[in-house]
């Protein structure tokens, strides 16, 4: 098991790219430690910019760098880089069409015990609603690697959210099917379609295994690409299922669940169930404790799917 945090994989891909691309620039807002970007800063000091605790500055400076030919990767806690810097993401990055890749670290409830100020349960909603902004939530380090290898080369703005801790693998180094902007189908079934993103992909897959033993067959989609959303895969999975269940580490509003329901409602109406964090400050605890409490586990998701099918 590789078991390294997605943010470490991001740093690793950036270091590899920086060996041959002097335009790669990593920026931090006193966040190089939490972003696992210190190895990059040490190896490529000329391609690293520290801006201090100033996230609006972080994104604005990144946009200026990009306008002059650089490929900036600002890395800062997801709660700050999306919410504190929202207007810079909107105007300086997306609207001005600058090649900035915004990396939101410690996303969702990664900073479980630190409270709502440090949680990013709104980032999918706010970033997806900016025209021209792409949004990605990779599920494990292997998928993160494949995604980043595309993003270090392309020229469009994007937001990537990863969690703080190492997560169990969904894929393996040798077996990580990946097509840019297409959901990965983990398994196919005819009773329920479970569509998940980020750290919720693995428990969704586990739920499908639990349900399989009970004679319930599920499709599981790893919808790492929130925008552009892979609507074709959603319609295909939903069309052959009785219920559609979305699972995300996000508010119930404006995230994956809202988008899936929008697509399913318009193209192949089915019962839609949104599993997410509550519309409330979440309970104190580690990510695992929080997920357990809200039923965002293999067992919890399986129970909800089973109930929805009754």
């Amino acid at each position, binding site marked *: 098991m590789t078991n390294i945090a997605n943010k470490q994989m991001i740093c690793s891909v950036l270091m590899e790219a920086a060996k041959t691309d002097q335009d790669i620039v990593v920026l931090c807002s006193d966040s190089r430690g939490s972003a696992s970007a210190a190895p990059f800063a040490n190896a490529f000091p000329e391609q690293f910019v520290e801006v*201090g605790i100033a996230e609006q500055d972080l994104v604005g400076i990144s946009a200026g760098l990009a306008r002059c030919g650089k490929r900036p990767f600002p890395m800062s806690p997801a709660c700050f880089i999306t919410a504190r810097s929202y207007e*810079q993401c909107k*105007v300086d990055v997306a609207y001005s069409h600058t090649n900035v890749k915004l990396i939101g670290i410690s996303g969702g409830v990664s900073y479980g015990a630190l409270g709502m100020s440090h949680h990013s349960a709104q980032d999918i909603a706010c970033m997806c609603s900016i025209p021209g902004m792409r949004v990605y939530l990779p599920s494990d380090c292997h998928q993160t690697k494949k995604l980043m290898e595309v993003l270090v080369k392309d020229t469009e703005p994007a937001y990537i959210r990863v969690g703080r801790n190492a997560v169990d693998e969904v894929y393996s180094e040798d077996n990580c099917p990946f097509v840019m902007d297409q959901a990965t189908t983990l398994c196919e079934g005819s009773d329920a379609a479970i569509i998940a993103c980020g750290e919720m992909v693995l428990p969704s897959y586990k739920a499908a295994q639990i349900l399989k033993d009970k004679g319930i067959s599920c499709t599981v989609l790893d919808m790492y690409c929130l925008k552009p959303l892979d609507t074709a895969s959603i319609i295909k999975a939903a069309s052959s299922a009785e219920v559609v269940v979305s699972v995300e580490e996000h508010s119930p509003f404006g995230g994956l669940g809202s988008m899936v329901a929008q697509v399913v409602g318009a193209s192949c109406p089915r019962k839609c169930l949104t599993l997410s964090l509550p519309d409330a400050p979440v309970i104190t605890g580690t990510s695992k404790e929080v997920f357990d409490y809200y039923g965002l586990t293999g067992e919890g998701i399986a129970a909800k799917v089973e109930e929805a099918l009754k």
Partner: protein
Amino acid sequence: MNLSKLAYKLRRDVVDMIVSGKGGHIGGDMSVMEVLVALYFKEMDVTPENFGKGVHDHFVMSKGHSVEALYAVLAEKGFFPIKEVIEKFSKFGSPFIGHPNNKLPGIEMNSGALGHGLPVAVGMAIAEKMNKTDQRVYVVMGDGEQAEGSVWEGAMAGANYHLDNLCAVLDRNRLQISGTTEEVMALDNLKDKWSSFGWEVINVADGNSVDELIAAFEQAKTVKGRPSLVLANTVKGKGSPVMENKASWHHHVPSTEEYQQIMADLKQHEEEA
């Protein structure tokens, strides 16, 4: 070319734009005109020929609401015809909208939300240092804009990275939409504030004097190891008593009578300049 005359000629283009589009930020357009004329016709190496080729000086209009002045200057530089701007400004489907947009030639960054330009300019200046070029970066801010916290984030970073290729201009016209800057949110002493942030502050007593501005920009080029702020003391609505120093003219559209008086005043200034 007599740049003082040019500034008054371009002011008339601005008034025509605003009357045609039935909107615009006329007061700040008038105060900042000489700053833009000095930059585009004397200081910066930016032309329709070299634009977008990675070789020119950079400009960010942080006080994006003064876009009408920028359009007039860019049109004079040959980026697009002034007739088209006046005809289409703010009209349905027009590319000439009420804030800078980089879909137009000559404009690098979209702006309009205040407090964004300086951090962007800092990023540009860091990039040109990394690129080891001698291209300079200019950013124009409003004085009311100084209340935005992100301005001071950018100020810190500019000094921290010793960006002597960066020159910010502060259009100090002392008025904003609700009244005087000192009534709305006291800003003085801006010279001390910027100096204490590690910037070289160059005070321009008459920020509507092209000669004084050019001298300040030339002085800024000689500063080493830190960025410069040109504190341009300007007159909001400069060019006609009808609109000078009146907060209500922040975005007032002239009536027919006001239009005739303003155009006559601007024509007279142009002849006397």
